[in-house]
């Protein structure tokens, strides 16, 4: 991680004259958005513990800076697609916490009316194309979103997120080739949280620098400190500018960390508690933003107010997720096919 910080830091120092990647107001917004994800995920974990959420539940705690920093670079019409660790991405695109939480509890008020669950939610309105449960599948789908932008000659970009575990899938490399060949506006974002389930990146990838995984196709890539929302935003701006200018795909390797297990039922014995604790204490993206805000002149009371507001949103979401009814039994039969016109 220190390595990653150095990598981005070096780039930032190289452009000493440029303005900071975020204003104080933008950072405050980012803080609020990251905190919402953190509190939402903690609540999801709690509801899971109470048996209100079933099946798989992959929490995003620790990785919040990645989606929040990238989302700050987007324009209307841009698309976002990711894997099953998707709650943070949805909240970052502006999807409502209550609709996401109600989907986790399998209720009719959920984004997929309770038929998708944690791993399968979508919002065309917010440009969020899922939520995909098959490791790596979203990478070629995200390339297809970029293809649609190319086909429609729009300046929109597709943010295609995947983990370092998925980065070894064959279709990821097929997608790199297709995107580079057709110069498609897609940003491939590898969220390297160091563990694909219980297998460390060192044990899964012969590649030691995943940002260079697109090099064979000439895809520019960089390693980014994914625990620093400012660094993410800065790299994201470079990547989106590259894509919008018609230069084809871009690759960002976000060096990040998940505090929780792969899913709720993962005891995480493949790493030490000290490792997790160290990341939390030294690199937490929310604490980092908080310190910067205080240094920038914001007072504790203002931050406390945000904390309370975010908690209230999450509590309201949790209440809604428990009060919204289960889907009607007739829902079993709907949405298998679109009715022909």
């Amino acid at each position, binding site marked *: 991680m220190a390595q990653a910080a150095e990598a981005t830091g070096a780039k930032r120092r190289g452009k000493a004259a440029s303005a900071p990647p975020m204003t104080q107001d933008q950072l405050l917004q980012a803080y609020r958005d990251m905190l919402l994800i953190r509190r939402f995920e903690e609540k999801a974990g709690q509801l899971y513990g109470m048996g209100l959420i079933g099946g798989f539940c992959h929490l995003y705690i620790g990785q919040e800076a990645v989606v929040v920093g990238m989302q700050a670079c987007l324009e209307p019409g841009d698309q976002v697609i990711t894997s099953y660790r998707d709650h943070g991405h949805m909240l970052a695109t502006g999807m409502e916490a209550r609709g996401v939480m109600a989907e986790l509890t399998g209720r009719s008020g959920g984004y997929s009316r309770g038929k*998708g669950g944690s791993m399968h939610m979508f919002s065309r309105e917010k440009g969020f194309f899922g939520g*995909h449960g098959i490791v790596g599948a979203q990478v070629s789908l995200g390339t297809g979103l970029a293809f649609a932008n190319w086909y429609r000659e729009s300046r929109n970009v597709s943010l295609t997120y995947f983990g370092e575990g998925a980065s070894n899938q064959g279709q990821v490399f097929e997608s790199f080739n297709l995107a580079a060949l057709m110069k498609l506006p897609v940003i491939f974002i590898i969220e390297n949280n160091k563990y694909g389930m219980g297998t460390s990146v060192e044990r899964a990838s012969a590649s030691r620098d995943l940002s260079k995984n697109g090099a064979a196709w000439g895809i520019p890539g960089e390693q980014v400190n994914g625990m620093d929302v400012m660094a993410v935003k800065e790299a994201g701006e470079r990547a989106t500018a590259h894509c919008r200018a018609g230069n084809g795909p871009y690759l960002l390797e976000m060096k990040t960390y998940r505090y929780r297990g792969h899913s709720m039922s993962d005891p995480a014995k493949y790493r030490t508690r000290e490792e997790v604790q160290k990341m939390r204490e030294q690199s937490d993206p929310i604490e980092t933003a908080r310190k910067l805000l205080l240094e920038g002149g914001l007072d504790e009371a203002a931050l406390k107010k945000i904390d309370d507001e975010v908690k209230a949103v999450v509590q309201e979401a949790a209440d809604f997720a428990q009060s919204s009814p289960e889907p009607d039994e007739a829902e079993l039969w709907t949405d298998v096919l679109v009715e022909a016109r």
Partner: protein
Amino acid sequence: MGVEILMPALSPTMTEGKLARWLKKEGDQVKSGDVIAEIETDKATMEVEAVDEGTLTKIVVPEGTEGVAVNSPIAELDGGGAGGSKGTAPGHDTAMPQQPAPPAAASPEVGEVAKQAEDYGAVAQRGADRKEGAAKMGEAAAAPEKDWGPTKPMTVREALRDAMALEMRADDKVFLMGEEVAQYQGAYKISQGLLDEFGPRRVIDTPITEHGFTGMAVGAAFTGLKPIVEFMTFNFSMQAIDQIINSAAKTLYMSGGQLGCPIVFRGPNGAAARVAAQHSQCYASWYAHVPGLKVVAPWSSADAKGLLRAAIRDPNPVIVLENEILYGHSFECPVADDFIVPIGKAKVERAGKDVTIVAYSIAVTWAMQAAEELAKQGIEAEVINLRSIRPLDAEAIANSVRKTNRLVTVEEGWPYANIGTEIAMQVMEAAFDWLDAPPVRVCGKDVPMPYAANLEKLALPTIPEIVDAVKRVTYK
């Protein structure tokens, strides 16, 4: 206002566990995310994190306690921090919580979810209607085939190309992608001339990466584009079958109806000639098994043109199983501009009273030839060309069986769980009392396709086999 901390379930099956260790003691300050305890299940030791903040006022269950039931209180917090979990959070009751407004400008009050809730009654009704509609499926098939007026001879190859050209002229969202479809004019020359007319934006050569380009096409379809994906043969679709089933077929359902996938997957299916096991396989059963997909298998030029047009216009993913050997065959095809064949309707290609032979794709050719042979022997066979595999025109088949009382199915797919199996079962469900003999399936042999000419012939259904099967069910 105390907040109880409950024993969490750490997996969907956990009902109790051991409280192994407290990492906080009474009087300690606790923040969200702090690890406060460890619990042990039969599988693992897991950490319990605090969700609320405050002072740990009381430890209810001491460490070392076994068999602590899920959801029983294990400790209490004083709820010192704002926003406890019991719904009494300041700002929660007293004021509308301000929704964080991320860049995409979240609507604070009535969002999509609320709208969905409003529409809920309509959706439920639609579901009920659908169920009823499915039960009644095929009743309309009894209606006579529409007369489309004048026809002209046309090969299946030309019919497929014309269908794509017509739909591409009508709708800019339609495009063709696949290996060798553009500059090479199609590996089997189905896309002849399309690059010249529509240009490289809409007729797109891909590298040989079925998994990747299929996923790309599915992603494009999620945005409302209407891709036609050509597989050089359906054998290669296995490289991409995850994207076809898990992404194209299921996303509409998983999204609660938000995200459809209007896409066509087409290409030659089944055995060609002398290309051996890996290039000679029928995928009808594979794809027909999947809810969320439609599957059609044209036989004649009219089927090819009409069904492909319907497939391109259909808002769902449609698999179009063509046959390489039929590409060069010529059939009469209606010339009307608006000619189309609805998906889900079978066609009686030859009327008869003694036996119903159901076939699809090239097996219709064999069934028709067998029917000629049988006619010479005084047996009048009714030949049904399925045209659609899913949805299946079960009613058309049952109606025919109610007349002939006998059923033979013909296809080149393997016997195990093939389309004939499904048809026989559906006929038994719908018309068991009308059957005068057990149905018989004529199909590919249960072996990988051999290369040797004589063995290949043995592996495929033959006309004598169909004739024999008919004699068995007619006891002649």
